[in-house]
Structures are given as C-alpha cells and as structure tokens.
C-alpha cells in the first residue's frame, strides 16, 4: 500500500514525505483534527487509538511545546507503551497530519552499538582511575621503602656510636688504660642515650598505632623533677654546664600527672639542651598556675632559626643546628605527641645565638594536695631478688646490699622454694616476670599464697601496659620497667616496705 496514492498531501511536503516513506518499512499516516483526534489513518496499526474519532494519547506528549512550530520531526521516540517511532508532524488546515514510522529495528541496532561504546568508555575510565591509584600506591611504596632504608641507616648509626663508646671504654678498663671514673661516666652516658633512643622509637611506633596510654596518678612532682635532673647532671657536668632546678617555695605538691610520660618528655628536652649548649647553663623551672602545671627547660645554647621552630617537631626532621650531632630526630616529635596525649601543649621560643626555651603545659584535675615529704631514713630489710639474668642478679645484689639490705638471689621458682625453706620468707620480693622457661607471675602467686601481705614488686623489660596491669592483678604492690635507675628502684622499695612512713 502506498500512502501517497491515498492521502492528499500538500504539494510543498510531498517530496519530503516521499523520501521518508521510500526509506522505511511500515509507515503510518494519521490525520487529526484540531482536538488531536484521529480523522483518518493509513498503514500498519502501530499504535492503539488510531481509529477515526479517538484521541492520540501516545502522541500527545510529543506535541507539547511544538504548537506553532510544525512541521517538525522527532526521531527515535520511546513512547511509554513501548513503541519506538520516528514522529513527523505537519500542519494541516484543520489540525495536524502525523507520519509515524516504526523505528524498532534501527533502535535495537543503534542501542546495541551505543551501549557497548558507553560501557567501554566507562570501563576505560575505571581502568584509568585504577592505573592512577596503582601508580600512586607504587610511588608511596617507593617513598616508604626509601624512608625505611634511610631510617635503618640512621638508626644503625645512632645505635653503633654509643655502643662503640661502651665497648671501647670497657676494653680500656680491662686493659687498665682508662681511668674507671672517666670510663664509667662514658659508659653511663652512652647507656642513657641508648635507653632514650629505644624509648623514643617504641613510643613513636605506639603513637603511630594510636596506642599511647596515659596513666595519671598522684605524683610528688618536685621529687620527680629533682630525680630527672639528678639523672641528667652527669651529662651536663661532663660539658661543664650548670644544671639548675627552679621550684616553687612551700611544701611539696602532689599533682595528678603521668610521671612516666612527664619523665620521657623532660629527659628528651634536657638531653637536647645539653647536646646543643656548649657554655652556660640549663634551667628546669616549674610552677602551678591555676589548674595548670607549667614546666620549662631553658638553655643558653645555639638557638633555633625561626623557619625551623615547627619543623623540629616533625618525626625524623632535624634543625640545621642538629646537623652532625647525634640524634634520630624523634625526641621532640614524640614529646609533643605525649604532651598532646595528656591534653597539654609543648611549645618553643628561641633566639639564635642566645638559646631556647621549651615549655610543657599540662592541665590538672581539680584536686591539688600538699604532701608530706618522706624524710625518714631507709628501712633495712631482707629482700629476695628473683631474676634469670645473672648480671641483673649481680647488680641488684650489689646495690641492695650497699643500701644495707640483706639480699637473697634466686633464678627460678625452685630456687625460691628452696630459699624460703632455708631463710624463711623475706620482707620484700623483687620478681622478674620474664623468667627463662617460667612465668614470673607463678613465683608471685607462690609467694602470695604463703604470705598474702608480703610486698612484691614486679620487674620486666616488656613495657606494655598489659604487663603492669597483669602484675597488679596478681597482687604486686608495684611495677618497675627495665632498665631502671638504681635511685628510683631504692625509692620504690622504701615505699613498698612496711615501716614508719607507711601510715
């Protein structure tokens, strides 16, 4: 059927319609009135409602907005009933003449091609993003690997230098070449440096894992700071530097702070101050202002350039003044991390050529209480030392005997049982938790079973919080992390021993 022979088309559009119809299959020609009702239709029945007299609900939406601008063509219209048609609208005297051409077949072909093209584009884009992400990950891995290599090389140097001093002084002492006082001072200085380095490395790892634990407890801060200065004095004296403490007047104050973390920060600050000061003095001053503890470490050293004042707190970054000096570039970074973990701040003010002042400010809980300083002489007692390391046993035996105590040393639970059988129960026991092949807590348990009131102090080279917690749960009166200062150990023992100060 040729619609052209049955529809009286206007002459001006006959040629165009002829072109359209000859190029397509299944055309449908619809004539409408003004109300867009079908007046006559020809061709295959593509749409419902194309009988004369009915409305064209499917086509109507196509004509919204098109009034007055026909003739118009809308190729590939997906009508809501599922028909896919090309719509051509022509003006007629009494309405519209509409030519619908089935576009299902061409639509299917085009859609297939277009779908594949789009999916390939989307896949390519995802691939590009993955490539960028992979490249970024590779670059980060390379950077991390370089940093790791640099770190290992740096750490190797940091460990080897003090170890060289320790080994050298020891050998010279054995040969009788070095003066014991000078050699021991050098060995001690190197040991303190190594300990600080290890503490800082462990702390840096913990901070990176978000595992910094803060344990505030009532602390006689005057005693704490004096002890730290006493520990650092030999280093200062070796460089002919004066090291002073400026403390507030009045009775001793017991403040709720984390003594271990305060100690770590101040050791770092004082070590740096000694390292960067060639002449003059270093002063540790502390005050309580309102609900804040302020501790400052001031030196008369080389000072820090303004541009480096913040960089020195970045891990492994070191100021220009530190070039060529020992140090891993961790101390200040960790000190600030610790200060912030205690909800405090660590800041620096410095003038080049005049010196620097580092200030630690820590918030305090409401209660401040003055504490009575313990001045009574140490109690002499019988102390049992349990440790599997013969050197540690020897050091403790010497130190405790020198303090006037009777000392019994044991290396295992069997030896503890035998010693109790021979000497009876001690006044206090010092038990290493990491005994070779045994759990030190079993020794604690055995002692506590026989004498629940016996003071027991646990020792361990493991510094994790869970070790201290487990020892407390087992009934220990205190926990001492290795290595320890003998002075601090003596104070802890005196506090744990029953005596006149135990009120």
């Amino acid at each position: 059927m040729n619609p052209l022979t049955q529809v009286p088309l206007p002459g001006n559009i006959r040629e165009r319609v002829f072109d359209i119809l000859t190029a397509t299959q299944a055309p449908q020609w619809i004539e409408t009135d003004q109300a867009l009702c079908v007046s006559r239709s020809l061709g295959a029945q593509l749409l419902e409602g194309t009988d004369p007299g009915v409305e064209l609900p499917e086509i109507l939406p196509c004509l919204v907005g098109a009034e007055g601008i026909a003739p118009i063509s809308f190729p590939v219209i997906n009508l809501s009933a599922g028909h896919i048609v090309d719509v051509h609208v022509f003006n007629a005297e009494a309405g519209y003449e509409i030519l619908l051409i089935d576009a299902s077949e061409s639509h299917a072909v085009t859609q297939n091609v277009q779908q594949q093209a789009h999916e390939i584009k989307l896949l390519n884009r995802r691939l590009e993003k993955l490539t960028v992400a992979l490249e970024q990950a590779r670059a980060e891995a390379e950077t991390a690997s370089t940093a790791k290599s640099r770190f290992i090389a740096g750490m190797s140097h940091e460990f080897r230098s003090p170890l060289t001093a320790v080994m050298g002084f020891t050998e010279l002492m054995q040969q009788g070449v070095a003066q014991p006082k000078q050699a021991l001072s050098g060995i001690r200085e190197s040991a303190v440096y190594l300990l600080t380095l290890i503490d800082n490395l462990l702390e840096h790892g913990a901070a990176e894992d978000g595992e910094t634990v803060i344990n505030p407890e009532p602390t006689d801060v005057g005693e704490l700071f004096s002890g730290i200065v006493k520990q650092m004095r030999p280093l200062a004296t070796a460089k002919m530097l004066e090291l002073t403490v400026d403390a507030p007047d009045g009775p001793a104050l017991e403040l709720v702070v984390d003594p271990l973390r305060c100690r770590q920060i101040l050791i770092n600050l004082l070590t740096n101050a000694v390292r960067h000061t060639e002449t003059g003095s270093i002063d540790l001053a502390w005050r309580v202002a309102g609900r804040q503890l302020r501790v400052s470490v001031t030196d008369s050293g080389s000072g820090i350039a303004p541009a480096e004042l913040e960089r020195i707190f970045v891990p492994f970054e070191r100021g220009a003044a530190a070039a060529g000096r020992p140090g891993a570039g961790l101390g200040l970074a960790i000190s600030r991390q610790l200060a912030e973990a205690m909800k405090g701040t660590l800041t620096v003010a410095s003038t080049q050529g005049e010196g620097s002042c580092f200030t630690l400010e820590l918030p305090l809980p409401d209660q401040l209480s003055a504490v009575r300083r313990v001045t009574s002489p140490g109690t002499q007692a019988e102390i049992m030392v349990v440790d599997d390391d013969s050197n540690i046993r020897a050091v403790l035996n010497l130190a405790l005997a020198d303090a006037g105590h009777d000392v019994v040393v044991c290396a295992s639970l069997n030896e503890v049982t035998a010693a109790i059988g021979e000497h009876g129960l001690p006044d206090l026991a010092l038990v290493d938790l990491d005994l070779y092949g045994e759990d030190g807590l079993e020794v604690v348990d055995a002692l506590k079973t026989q004498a629940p009131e016996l003071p027991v102090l646990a020792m361990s080279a493991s510094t994790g919080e869970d070790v201290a917690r487990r020892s407390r749960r087992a009934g220990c009166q205190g926990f001492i992390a290795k290595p320890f200062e003998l002075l601090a150990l003596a104070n802890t023992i005196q506090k744990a021993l029953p005596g006149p100060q135990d009120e």
Partner: protein
Amino acid sequence: MKSVKVCILGDFAVGKTSLVRRFVDEAFSERYLTTVGVKIDTKTVHLNDSGPIKLVLWDVAGADELSALQTSYVRGSAGFILVCDLTRRETLTTATKLKSEVAAQFGPVPWCLLANKSDLAQEREIDDMALTELAEDGWNVHATSAKTGFNVETAILALASRLAAASGRSP
C-alpha cells in the same frame, strides 16, 4: 491543566533515565541501559501555589554537546534539567557546556542541576565545596540519588514551581 515540556540533559550514564524513573514510578534499577533518541514520560504534580501541572519529561540520550538531532528535541521546552554524576568530574564540565548551548539557542528558561549518585560517597570526585561554589554563582544545584530517592522529588518539584510561576507570567 497546563502541560509543560521539560528536557533532561547530561553526559551518558549520569542517571537521567533513572532519575525520571524514580520521579515517575518511584523505582530504580541497577542495570545501565543506554537511551537512544528520547524517552517521554509524564507526571502530574500538585503545587501548593498554582495547582496541578503536567510535566512532560523528555529524557534525551546522553551526549556531551547538543547535536542537531538533540536541538530538535529541546525545541519548545519550558525548562530543562541538567544532570551530572558526582563520581565523574568531567560530567560537570559537560553539564556546564550544555547549559551554555541551551541558553544560547533558546534564551533564558528555568533550569536546575541535579548532581546525581550522592549515595556513592566514597567514589565522589565532585565535592560539596564545588556544588556550593556553583550555588554561589546562581545555579540551582541539588545533590540527588536516583538509587535511594534522596532529594529527587524535592528538586524536580522546585523546578516545577518555577515553571508554573514562569508560565503564569507568560501572556
């Protein structure tokens, strides 16, 4: 009842068809099926100020510019909806380009930008700050999700209100 033609334009696979389906049928399909030509849907909405209005939504096949073919689809539109994909930055560039082309050819008509796929928060390449900057430049921007339905109706009804107000002002 007043009928208005609204064209939905944007790059391919930004979710134009899904937005219309969410608005008209309250449904969503995960499957991507490219649109060829135009899909026409209608929905009558009831506006508080101006009563019912029939939206004739022309969901035009995705493209990064207006071809001659698409120009014929857009002709006669009372307004248009631009769509971009929050997980593909370049689709915002396409939307910006299409907006300029439509404005140049058809003059000032109400329009809005739907920043779609807001549910894919982890994959976003266009952040809230970029949308805020567009809003500060006078764009009617709505973050939407055809998948969850977030903001779709609110955004299109806001445009419908402006269309109704504009048609009320027309002679």
